[in-house]
């Protein structure tokens, strides 16, 4: 318990670190500023700004803004990225409430009741409850990360290659179970991602694999490049299909009265609590945590409500529960990344990319070797959530104005911004073309109803999985039963197999489809 406070204290110390700023125009005067708080603020603001733009989800936002963190010190960069992440998520819920275009998958269910509320002229309370719910969930999740961080790290140190491999298999199976649509297609996407991750030099022998003697491919496909293509460019091309003037159901009346009424607060409190608990649990599980968390929270609220018919017509619980759940899940999904070094979803995978650029290898060692980095980031999450609630509510007016910018002007700007962003990662023009090609691949995938998220997860886990598989087999001298004879590994694989069987069973399939079709009616 003492450790916990010590660690959090350390984290807040890092975040509040004061440095003296003496610009020339103050003639020798110095101002005390906290760089890390500034980073958090900028990240949250920029993240919301981009997240508000319809058709750009969290992954694309983080991928797009990745280059702006390159010049910063590692702690500042990670704090800023975390800020961008929540900002994007919050921005997504703003669009879904005001325009009925969910900025991303996590706020699809928020749109149902949130937009209904907005149409009744209660957009203000809906936005406020979304922010308050997110903030509360964020607080709980921050404490949870701090509590679970240290013990899980100890557990992780007992992991050998075989256990790591099995854990990643479990993570990928989770991704399959939690993905929308066909199980077979989700598995195929993961394997496709694994194959893509193998392009480039082999880790052990250095042999060039599937690179066709193209020097730019020798280092492998950049993760940010593929993410930007599949989530950024593909999304833009897809939106153009529908014609640039998308059916925008923007709430035109002025938003008045942000404050929710007493009744709103009383109604939404239990929903926020349930959403937080559900989201925290689902977030820790690897594989698309935040999306399923918001769907599950909405379904749960509807199931236990006294009068389920209110849902879909502006029930405040329908905003409070999914918003708290997705924020809780978004934060607890840092737990597997920070303790085990395994990214549980695509955004966390981008975080790994960012960490690698700054020379940090995520995993149990980071917690011990660079505690100020990890705890600083955890503390900044809480600050970031606080900032979102303080900054964003007054800024809602600006976000609404941004939504009025027509798509015909928005999309070329996004294309250019993405292109410059990708170019600046490695200063490589080939990366831009590759991202474009993956944009077409992503467009094709959307047309054939394949989900790109498992593909990205497979691509990120690919090198880790292969390395651990090879190492495990080398240690066991080629004995494949090692995955079953080591108890921890066997348990993990058994859970994975059990889950896969459950998903294929017809009864549970129907349940799973029901959760996902919730948004369509």
């Amino acid at each position, binding site marked *: 318990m003492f450790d916990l406070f010590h660690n959090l204290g350390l984290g807040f110390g890092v975040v509040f670190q004061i440095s003296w700023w003496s610009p020339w125009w103050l003639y020798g005067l110095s101002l005390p500023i906290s760089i890390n708080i500034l980073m958090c603020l900028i990240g949250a603001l920029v993240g919301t700004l981009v997240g508000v733009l319809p058709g750009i989800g969290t992954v694309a936002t983080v991928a797009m803004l990745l*280059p*702006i963190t*390159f*010049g910063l010190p590692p702690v500042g960069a990670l704090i800023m990225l975390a800020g961008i992440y929540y900002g994007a998520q919050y921005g997504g819920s703003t669009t879904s409430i005001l325009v009925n275009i969910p900025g991303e998958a996590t706020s699809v269910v928020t749109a149902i009741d949130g937009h209904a509320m907005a149409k009744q002229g209660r957009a203000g309370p809906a936005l406020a409850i979304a922010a308050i719910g997110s903030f509360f969930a964020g607080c709980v999740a921050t404490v949870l990360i701090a509590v679970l961080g240290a013990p899980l790290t100890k557990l992780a140190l007992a992991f050998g290659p075989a256990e790591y491999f099995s854990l990643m298999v479990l993570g990928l199976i989770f991704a399959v179970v939690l993905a929308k649509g*066909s199980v*077979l*297609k989700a*598995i*195929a996407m993961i*394997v*496709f991602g694994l*194959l893509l991750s*193998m392009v480039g030099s*082999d880790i*052990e*022998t250095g*042999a060039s*694999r*599937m690179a066709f003697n193209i020097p730019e491919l020798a280092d492998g496909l950049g993760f940010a490049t593929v993410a930007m293509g599949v989530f950024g*460019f593909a999304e*833009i*091309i897809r939106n*153009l*299909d529908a*014609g*640039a*003037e998308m059916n925008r159901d923007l709430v035109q009346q002025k938003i008045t009265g942000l404050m929710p009424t007493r009744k709103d607060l009383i109604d939404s409190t239990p929903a926020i609590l349930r959403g937080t608990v559900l989201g925290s649990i689902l977030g820790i599980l690897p594989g698309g945590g935040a999306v399923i968390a918001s769907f599950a929270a909405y379904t749960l609220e509807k199931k236990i409500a006294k009068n389920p018919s209110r849902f879909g017509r502006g029930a405040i619980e329908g905003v409070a529960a999914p918003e708290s759940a997705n924020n809780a899940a978004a934060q607890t999904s840092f737990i597997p990344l920070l303790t085990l070094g395994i990214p549980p979803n695509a955004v966390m995978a981008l975080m790994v990319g960012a960490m690698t650029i700054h020379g940090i290898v995520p995993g149990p060692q980071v917690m011990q070797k660079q505690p100020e980095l990890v705890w600083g980031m955890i503390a900044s999450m809480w600050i970031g959530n606080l900032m979102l609630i303080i900054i964003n509510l007054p800024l809602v007016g600006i976000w609404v104005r941004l939504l009025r910018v027509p798509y*015909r*002007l928005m*999309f*070329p*700007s996004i*294309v*250019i*911004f993405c*292109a*410059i962003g990708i*170019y*600046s990662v490695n*200063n490589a*023009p080939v990366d*831009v*073309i590759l991202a*474009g090609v993956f*944009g*077409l691949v992503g*467009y*094709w995938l959307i*047309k*054939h*109803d*394949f989900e790109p998220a498992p593909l990205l997860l497979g691509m990120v886990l690919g090198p880790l999985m*292969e390395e651990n*598989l*090879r190492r495990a*087999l*080398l240690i066991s*001298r*080629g*004995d494949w039963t090692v995955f079953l004879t080591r108890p921890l590994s066997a348990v993990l694989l058994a859970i994975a197999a059990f889950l896969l069987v459950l998903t294929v069973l017809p009864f549970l399939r129907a349940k799973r489809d029901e959760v996902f079709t919730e948004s369509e009616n």
Partner: protein
Amino acid sequence: MADTMGHSATTTRNKSVVIAFCLLAVAPQIFELIWSIGTIFGWGAGRGPATVLISHATALLAGAPGALLRAVGGDTKQASSDVLLALIYSYPLFAVAILTVFMTIRSAQDYVGGIVLMALALFALWASSDLQGMRGFSFGAGTAPRMFGGLLVALGAGIALTGLLTDGPAMAHYSWRGPLFVMVSIVFFALAIRPLGVVVTAFVSFLIAAIGTHETRWIEAVIVGACLTLGCALLFPYVLGLPMPMFPRFLVQ
């Protein structure tokens, strides 16, 4: 009457799918041929178009069947890369295309999706065929790609099979205007950023991307493009300190 009409409609749709698969089966060869045209003008490295055409044609028509016969005969001489491409990638896809003629496709979305994934996996299998396999009990560089390639072939086949056995959506509608101009804009950006600098490249790419929809109003687009260019030119090189050429090289010198 209605029955025959429905039947003929399926056949025509099947025919276009079959032709598409046949094209897919020789796509890498065609791609190399187009690529090799550049060597005439001295761009890029690689074989000339005539060599490419002859070696692929012989591989497809003679080399591969020969290698197949030899393999049956127990002779395991290493075949050339072109022959392997024909054997591993093109032949299975031709086989699929021929099988497609006799099938009734109940969900084109799944069937085509599955087959294309299978093609990708076969291509990956060919691309990793020159890598070393298992050495004793330790993995070679090529083991994992082959493992996952094989798995993806099976999964692709499985998805295609669901497209044959269960009813589902037909092929989605593709539009060409958006994807084409966004791609042209991206490629132009990649080619021009080094020689022409951010200012020119960003502005021209913006306008090219704007052609992607017929709703573009040009005066508006030029103004917004200019503002965006100015913003990017200030933001990336100055505020964020990312090294990037600003103006065309020939103007700076």
